[in-house]
């Protein structure tokens, strides 16, 4: 394909690589290796905190799958995507200072550390670790496939080669640099995402002859495209609203978000991150999905949703600028993958190995384990991604909803409800995941139960399970 497109992408990859490498050199000894490697020594400032949250959250589905669906469905899908603005302030306000204070008090490095200390229960820790490893591993694989596919479609390289390039660029800096490298590269990737979104939006509006002209084209084709109900009129208010749980408030329960909520250095950093995070999340979600819809009159007839953004960028922009813009989805995928990789690694090293297998391991062993597990995990994901499973969004959302149903109440009520205890937490996690899987299969076979997204009922059921479990077995107030 066009060499002009490839050059900016290569520059981007080298730049990310360099930043990750430099960040890895900054690992000072303070707070011990684990705190440094998996939590960046709790030193994140406001800008980096906001960007790493947005970038970790914003993934292939924000830049490829989501706009691709908006292309097919119309404005109804942008409405749905805008439920994500809430994540910008909700996660930090709800987990808030209490999570950061307790995290320090318990000396927690991972979300599981927090749960283990709060509920004083190894069983809670092991269940959480299993859930995180299984679900986030599948989410990560889906993102790698997305990354490989994107490089493949942009460069014309073989999928295997493309995936290899992607894997190497992520693996090296995550393995040697840990959380700080992930957060710093996320900040740069977040900035690339914002710039790419803005440039492409302008390009698409110009190519379409202005917003009113684009709108007229859409109405002429199918007036339902500009309604909230989708191109075929099947997007119901209940279904779209249930995304407030899946990609809105439920995000509080995601381990990759929660761990960031204890990584900041001060209240002031958190306050800044609230503002920046809200603005950046909303800006990206609104405009990327608008681009998806606006692309429709410009390039009708694209069959595969994930290809809408790459194709429209190549169509409306000069090659070098398209390269800059297409670094954005690349950045989104990389910044999600790097966080997940480190999180799964921390679940294995910190939560399983150090908690249950060898608590007395020496600092050197821990170091070797951390580097080793992160690296090996990356290689395993690479091998899985070679035989790519279909339906990228599907896997992604499955991991999302399952983890939310499992963790939202043990984390949130563990913070704020003194009667919450380990019985409630265990019952809640099991109920959440089991219900999610059961309802997922029911919905696939029979259509959505009650007309809402799969995640809705499991979240309600796991709340009931948490309260019942906590009060029924042993009602005892916890002193924070």
């Amino acid at each position, binding site marked *: 394909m066009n060499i002009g497109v490839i050059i900016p992408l290569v520059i981007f990859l080298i730049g990310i690589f360099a930043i990750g490498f430099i960040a890895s050199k900054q690992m000072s000894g303070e707070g011990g290796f684990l705190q440094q490697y998996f939590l960046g020594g709790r030193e994140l400032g406001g800008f980096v905190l906001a960007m790493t949250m947005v970038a970790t959250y914003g993934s292939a589905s924000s830049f490829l799958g989501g706009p691709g669906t908006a292309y097919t469905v119309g404005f109804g899908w942008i409405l749905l995507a805008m439920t994500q*603005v809430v994540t910008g302030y909700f996660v930090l306000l709800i987990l808030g200072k*209490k999570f950061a204070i307790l995290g320090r008090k318990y000396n927690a490095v991972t979300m599981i550390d927090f749960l283990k200390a709060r509920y004083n229960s190894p069983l809670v820790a092991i269940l959480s670790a299993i859930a995180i490893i299984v679900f986030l591993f599948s989410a990560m694989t889906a993102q790698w496939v997305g990354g490989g596919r994107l490089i493949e479609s942009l460069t014309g390289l073989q999928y295997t080669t493309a995936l290899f390039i992607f894997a190497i660029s992520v693996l090296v800096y995550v393995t040697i640099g840990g959380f700080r490298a992930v957060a710093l590269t996320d900040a740069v990737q977040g900035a690339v995402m914002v710039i790419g979104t803005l440039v492409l939006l302008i390009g698409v509006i110009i190519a379409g002859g202005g917003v009113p002209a684009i709108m007229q084209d859409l109405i002429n084709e199918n*007036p339902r495209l500009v309604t*909230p109900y989708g191109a075929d009129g099947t997007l119901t*208010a209940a279904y779209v609203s249930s995304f407030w749980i899946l990609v809105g408030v439920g995000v509080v329960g995601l381990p990759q978000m929660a761990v960031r909520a204890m990584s900041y250095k*001060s209240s002031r950093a958190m306050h800044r991150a609230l503002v920046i995070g809200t603005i950046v999340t909303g800006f990206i979600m609104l405009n990327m999905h608008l681009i998806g819809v606006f692309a429709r009159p410009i390039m009708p007839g694209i069959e595969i949703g994930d290809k809408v953004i790459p194709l429209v960028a190549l169509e409306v922009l000069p090659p070098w600028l398209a390269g800059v813009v297409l670094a954005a989805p690349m950045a989104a995928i990389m910044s999600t993958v790097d966080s997940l990789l480190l999180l799964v690694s921390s679940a294995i090293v910190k939560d399983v190995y150090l908690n249950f297998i060898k608590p007395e391991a020496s600092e050197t062993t821990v170091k070797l384990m951390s580097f080793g597990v992160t690296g090996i995990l990356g290689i395993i994901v690479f091998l899985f991604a070679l035989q790519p499973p279909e339906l990228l969004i599907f896997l992604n959302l499955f991991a999302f909803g399952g983890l939310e149903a499992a963790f939202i109440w043990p984390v949130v009520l563990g913070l704020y409800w003194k009667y919450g205890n380990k019985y409630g937490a265990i019952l809640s996690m099991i109920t959440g995941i089991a219900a999610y899987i059961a309802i997922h299969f029911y919905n696939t076979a029979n259509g959505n139960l009650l007309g809402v997204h799969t995640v809705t009922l499991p979240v309600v059921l796991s709340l009931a399970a948490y309260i019942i479990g906590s009060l029924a077995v042993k009602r005892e107030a916890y002193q924070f």
Partner: protein
Amino acid sequence: MSRKQSDNTRTTDPRFKIAHREAIIGIALAIFNFIWWFGFAYGLGSRAPEDYTYIWGLPDWFFYSCVLGFIIMCILVIVITKYFLKEVPLDADPSHIDQPKEGPTKQ
């Protein structure tokens, strides 16, 4: 960690009171956000498409719900962060909490 605390006399960390208040602010913001988003989207959007008016070229329901709604949420978050959230130290040792060491809240 000792788990034996039968007395209610031990005062809880005063920082947690602030944290609880801020969590409630978070919930209030989300509820407001949802009502705004839902109200305009389905209140205006359920009309026939030919009755829509267009603002900045966008359908009115969408403009109010998603564009204006987003701008308003940004403003609210900025105002709340500036005037309603308190800066507290985050250290595990709460002995010096009476004097927030990070300077005045508003500036």
